[in-house]
């Protein structure tokens, strides 16, 4: 799979995660600057 195709495939999953992150933002600890997520196994991600 090309990287461009992979980008399209992950759009829905990542958009959901981004929306979730934006919603959680006020509750974040000030020193938590990075959060890591694996997308393996998510629906729609190849």
């Amino acid at each position: 799979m090309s990287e461009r195709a992979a980008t399209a495939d992950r759009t829905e999953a990542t958009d959901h995660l981004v929306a979730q992150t934006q919603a959680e933002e006020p509750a974040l600890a000030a020193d938590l600057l990075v959060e890591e997520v694996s997308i393996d196994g998510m629906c729609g991600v190849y």
Partner: protein
Amino acid sequence: MSTETLPRAGFDLDRPWRLHPKVSVRPERFGALLYHFGTRRLSFLKSPALLTVVRSLVDAPSAREACRSAGVTEAELPAYAAALETLASSQMICARVSS
């Protein structure tokens, strides 16, 4: 004993770093989303300043200098060093050989 806050020892702020070539960056309101095409992992940068740091790593002589040019203060440096250590451990950034 000194009360000075020191960055975590696990990340070398004084060497040059760069964004991994297989990582794409998508700016977001909260900072940015990084995606590594090799490891298929995502990292959320929850600070626009951290995005500035990550983007400037490639041109900076050291991570410390990238932080400084992004406006990171000495008090904030340990948190940013920890964030960069996390990004290094997940291969989002990698050490750069000085030319």
